[in-house]
């Protein structure tokens, strides 16, 4: 629904690592209720851009606006406060803790210093049910879960703080088809909840299945913005620089 004002806007954002131009004057807008896919070759700047939005990397220049107001995102905690939640390629989850503990890791519910375990368990069950996640038990230690289930825990984790923007970096890499199907269905669910989603992926089938818009990055620069109905061939041409 691009008729509404964007929830996130990046304007002329640049980030250099020495001589490496990771991002050069990159623009990106994201609306509520929209899935924007970021695609590009290795080193195109996708993950750098995700890290800028998540507060992990500070841009060298350029502006970031959330809800039309210019902001700086100096840390992941600051990103959380601004309503940005992120899931990176290797989700930071703890193997020995159960599903509930992982979902609430660092954001535990407590009242006067006492953890509200029952409420967290209930909330985790509700979150997983809303995402139609197939995880039988919320007290299962994480090491017993499949890759797809872990990804689901990582996504459920992002919803605890009621964010408005979710950044997913390669959420379907190394998943089976059924697990990919589940993750794509969660992404549709996030969009239905009215969130803006930035989806980074190499797989154009997955991207075109759930995205509203595809933004191509090439050598750290914008290389075109396409509706998700654009053909494979055209997207690949933009990714490789054939156009």
């Amino acid at each position, binding site marked *: *629904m*691009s*008729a509404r004002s964007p929830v996130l806007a990046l304007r002329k954002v640049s980030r250099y690592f020495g001589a490496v131009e990771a991002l050069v004057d990159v623009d990106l807008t994201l609306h509520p209720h*929209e899935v924007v896919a970021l695609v590009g070759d290795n080193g195109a700047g996708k993950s750098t851009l995700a890290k800028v939005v998540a507060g992990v990397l500070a841009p060298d220049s350029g502006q970031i606006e959330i809800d039309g107001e210019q902001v700086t995102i100096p840390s992941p905690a600051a990103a959380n406060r601004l309503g940005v939640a992120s899931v990176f390629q290797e989700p930071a989850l703890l193997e020995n803790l159960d599903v509930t503990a992982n979902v609430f890791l660092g954001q535990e519910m407590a009242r006067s210093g006492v953890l509200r375990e029952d409420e967290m368990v209930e909330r985790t069950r509700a979150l997983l049910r809303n995402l139609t996640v197939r995880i039988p*038990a919320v007290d299962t230690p994480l090491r017993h879960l499949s890759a797809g289930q872990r990804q689901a825990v990582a996504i459920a984790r992002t919803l605890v703080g009621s964010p408005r923007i979710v950044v997913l970096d390669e959420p379907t890499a190394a998943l089976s088809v*059924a697990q990919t199907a*589940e993750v794509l269905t969660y992404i549709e669910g996030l969009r239905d909840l009215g969130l803006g989603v930035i989806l980074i992926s190499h797989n154009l089938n997955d991207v075109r*299945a759930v995205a509203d818009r595809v933004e191509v990055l090439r050598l750290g620069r914008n290389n075109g913005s396409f509706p998700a109905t654009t053909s494979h061939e055209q997207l690949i041409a933009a990714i490789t620089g054939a156009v």
Partner: protein
Amino acid sequence: MAGSQSSLREANRARVVEAVKRHGGLTQVELAGATGLSQASISTIVKELVAAELFDVRNTVRSGRRAQLVTLAHQTGLVSGVVVGRRQLRVAVADVSHEVLAEQVMPLADAHRADTSLDRVALLIVELLDRLGTAMDELQGIGVALPAPVDAATGQVSVRGVLRGWDNVPVAQVLTKRLARPVFVDNDANLGALAESTLGAAREARDAIYVRVGHGVGAGIMLGGRVHRGVAGTAGEIGHVQVDPAGRICSCGSRGCLNTVVGEEALLEALRTSHGSLTLRDVVRLANDDDPGCRSLVRDAGATVGRVVANVATAFNPERIVVGGELAETGDVFLEPFREMIQRQSVLQQAEPPVDVVASGLGARAELEGALSLVLQHIDVFETREGVALPPQPQEELL
């Protein structure tokens, strides 16, 4: 109190059954976690339900340990239903009594291609069987619904161009080669009609029309209790009836087809200026949320489709018209103007009994149920169920 004790036990039992249905198969330990009940209660309930022949228990391995996998009890023989949509794939494994044991939905890209999508179908079926702890040899057959006219003899799309990327693809053959199981293919609206007439809203009607209004429009025509396919399987393709002689060129090559006016692309295009980029699911949701623009659009679509169906119904004189597909999920927003167009056709209304227009009884599941029915029609499990001692025959003849 004894009364509340037994109702509590009943509620716990229901929780356990629901958890098993949701996950396909669970170990007892997982069941305890999923329901919040104690292991002891789970053990008791599972024992009761196994005795009641509602659950099956089989040995499995979880996290390197032996465990007991609890599944819904199923009759010998499983069947798989596959619904290929324009933007979504639905794959399910059920037993011969239509009880769905495991199911997975997957969003698909616009204009997805046959090779990638059929590969996903094959892998999903394998994964679902795995979730149930069963092997491929328990699967009796696979029924596939395609959003295009299908030639029953070859099991492939019979009209070029209407389903991009699927022309000349021998769907049944591709899947049989991958999975070594019999595969039966039909059009989605035909399968919806089959399901509605056996399990849904047209059960009592011998002559009925099922209209599916989603990304495109299609119809399944039931005559004398059988789906009327036509010589090449294109019967009921009302999405390609001309409604605007000066309209756009359709994917089929003709001008001004119904699909160019009320198909997904046309609907979303009409909203682009006012609403930005939407999906068909958004339109349905917004129409249900009283968004005036989406409501007008869906209402007009209801009237346009209604005019075409009124003509089709005049030709066939059905007892009942059943409306399904995504747009039907807007309820009366679509159905009201649709019904009005049918009622304007005096031949249909003055006849006794007049034709009756109802919403689909199976909703989004109609095509899946139809795909399951299609397989069950072709295999012999029914005879074994009737008590005739016939082992399930291996199916030699493929579509």
